[in-house]
């Protein structure tokens, strides 16, 4: 039946049904049968169905922001804002040509753009042509702080599962400015250089050559070792909701500096990166104001 469908689809759509990727093939079949349709940009709020794109964007933005704020209220530990505030350093971090080349190599060229509508491919091209200009820009930012536009994320609500009209079923996906992405890559390399021996023994996420598979293997070997030693083994697991949205800059910096004293420039960059973040929701090209 699959072969017959393939022939039929090739005839009708002349799309890439011939590719060996079975996932894309069944996606195509689903599309032809009208299963994966994009959202209708409508939301139901207290019995009313809103179809206006701007209104749906505003409601989605408020929902995503309030979700994080309500969770943050549960935090009993008081925030020390003075510790979170970035103060321009006397000896800022500087980047050189090799840093930039390394970062350019590491960044992917196909990424969704942010509010600047500038693809990463173009930014990479620009950086490879005008190396000194880009280095000047990034060094300036490392010394004085990020511009306002780099702090605002373009959020696209993506349906997870279930009813399209229910806003609880949407996941916010935020896209940042393309220049910012390159800058992040530069900073990441610097952080990795400075905190090379600081990574936790048990951390597998966001770490080179580590994945969920290595986590499982480590856990398994740990359990096996315990059983071999005739000990009682118990596994306790927790899941943190909105873990990255609720990241506390003051605690992070304190914790990092406890392990190893970071340079003044890097401290400033981390705090500056987390300071006064904003987001706006984009629904089919119509954007809300940032909040």
């Amino acid at each position, binding site marked *: *039946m699959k072969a*017959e*469908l393939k022939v*039929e*689809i090739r005839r*009708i*759509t002349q799309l890439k049904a011939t590719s060996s990727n079975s996932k894309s093939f069944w996606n195509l079949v689903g*599309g*032809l*049968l*009208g299963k994966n*349709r*994009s959202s209708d940009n409508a939301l139901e709020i207290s019995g009313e169905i809103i179809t206006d794109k701007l209104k749906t964007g505003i409601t989605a933005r408020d929902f995503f922001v309030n979700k994080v704020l309500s969770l943050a209220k549960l935090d009993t530990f008081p925030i020390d804002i003075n510790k979170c505030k970035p103060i321009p350093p006397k000896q800022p971090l500087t980047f050189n040509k090799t840093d930039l080349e390394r970062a350019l190599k590491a960044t992917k060229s196909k990424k969704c753009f942010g509010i*600047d*509508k*500038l*693809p990463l491919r*173009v*930014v990479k*091209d*620009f950086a*490879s*042509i*005008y190396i000194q*200009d*880009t280095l000047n*820009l990034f060094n300036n930012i490392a010394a004085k702080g990020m511009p306002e536009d780099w702090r605002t994320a373009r959020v696209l609500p993506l349906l997870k599962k279930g009813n399209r009209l229910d806003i609880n079923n949407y996941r916010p996906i935020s896209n940042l400015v393309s*220049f910012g992405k390159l800058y992040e890559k530069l900073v990441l390399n610097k952080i990795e250089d400075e905190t090379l021996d600081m990574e936790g023994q048990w951390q597998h996420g966001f770490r080179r050559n580590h994945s969920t598979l290595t986590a499982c293997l480590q856990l398994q070997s740990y359990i096996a070792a315990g059983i071999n030693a005739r000990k009682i083994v118990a596994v306790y697991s927790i899941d943190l909701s909105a873990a990255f949205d609720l990241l506390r800059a003051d605690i992070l910096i304190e914790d990092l500096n406890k392990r190893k004293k970071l340079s003044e420039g890097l401290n400033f960059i981390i705090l500056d990166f987390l300071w006064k973040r904003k987001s706006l929701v984009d629904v*089919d*090209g119509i954007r809300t104001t940032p909040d």
Partner: protein
Amino acid sequence: MDNQDNVLNVTSSATSRKTARMARLDGQTTSKDSGKQRPTQTRSLEPGLIQTVMKRDRERPTSTSREPKRQRGNSRVTSELTSRPRTLETGSQTSGRTILGVDLRTNAIGAMNDPGAMNDPEAMNVTVATHRNTNQDIARRDPGITTDHHQDTIAHHQRGKIMTLTNTTVTTTTRVRCKAQVNGVKKSNLLSLSLTQSQGLMSQGMLEKEPDHRTRTTADTVMPAPLVALGPNTSIKGVELKKSDVRAPRINVSVHYPAKIKPGVDLPMNTYIKKFDLCANKKFDLIFWNVVGRLMNKIDFLKDYMNKNKPCIVFISEAELKTVDQVLACSIPDYNIEISLTKTIRTCVYIKKGIFYKRLLNRLDQGNDLELIGLEIPHIRHQIAGFYKPFKLPSGYTKPTYKNKLLNSLADLLNGTRSVSLGGDMNIDLSKKSHETDDLTNWLINNGLQQIVKKNTRHRLADLANGKTRFETSLIDHVYTNTVGNKIRLENTGLSDHDIVSVTTSLLQPGKILKREVRDWAKYDISTLENKINYLYNEDRLPRFQLVSQALDEIAPFRVIKTRENGGSIIITKIEKSKRKEIDNLKSSKRQEIKITYLKHDAYPR
């Protein structure tokens, strides 16, 4: 041909020549004044006979002499011309019923001459004159297309006389795209109509010769096609062909009705609503009904019924609409009417006004013997056909030949592999088993259709030979479709022994149109980017990274593209077919398995 001779005879006489001239002048003036003056030439003639006038070419005034001018590169025409004049004089005055229309596929003017209605006092005679140059142009342009029919018309034009649009002379205009103009209906006795929207009644012989691609090119321009039925004593005047486009000249036709007759058919040409919101309702109501006998007697009931239920399309079989008056009387407000192409019009369709549809002509049925009306609704990608297989077959047919022809032409209609619903009175009882039912079910399976009417639709008391009666029921009204989720409702009316079969078809929405902003990357290059930024930098002296987006906008600007989501219903039929095949294969393989095990047991005993 009788009709043709008749008309030519009238004008060939001395008196009628004068009237013809007058009428010509008259026609010219009335075409400007949108028909305020009545044509004078009709008064001198007998009622029921209408004469028409052809506009002469200004450069080459038509010669009154019978010897025609020799046409370039067409010797067959001249031979035809020399044989013509005698027959003109000997023609007798007769009148026949003619229905005028335009073929939807070819956009050709057509007229059907019914010799059976000759003695009918209400019968009418419609003739149309066209500009002669167009035909000659056509002949000059591609002389290969000239047929016998073509020669006929050229002959008439050569004589500068009248051309009649009967079955024989239709061919000239098959190369012509006609578009009629509506002169306002301010006066009560004046009705105008546009011929592009009318029903095509033309000889099937020409349809054969029409290539297929032509139907596709004209599909966009074709408008909904209600019947153009001309009432008695109508005349067509002011006919002119505009040579704006040689391939597609325009014919303006205005129809003159006598003051007394107010036809019931509203002819709302050019007023179709494009966006009939079928998709929002997601439902499409179809009705098939065999009225048994004449529709005229039951039209009041049908009107009430359709007012209540408001179906989209209603197919009526055994309507017996023999004259134009009957067709007019059977019109229903808010519905367009279409009739079958047969001589005894036994089926008709009512289509709700506002539904944008296209009439499908049957290519296989050359003699117009089948009671079959096919429609396509392009907006929702749906094809509908209503049919009727009569007990009394037309001459030259046997039961199997007629059935095969009907089924073949139905299959031909649904060649487009889209969602289809066909229905009507098949006169094959599916509640009992016979070789006919087997054939039908095979045909259904081969075409990926299923019959969805499950209960008996016909109930009657049959008279037996011994004077007693017997109650009989049968399932002979069928609906075949490849759509999913149909609801069938049967309603028994006292007026007919057939039930009304109403089908609500749930239609899948065609895909939504999405707009997206996309960059045009065709001219993008690293070097062009560099040059652009340098250029902008020299002008503005801004930091270079601020100029990137501006440069990119100039090199690769945003463009709005429209994409359509894939709607459903395209490959559903194919999937169903393949499913059926799989099931069949499974069944056959199970049988084989049993055989194999038996053989193995014998071959290798323990």
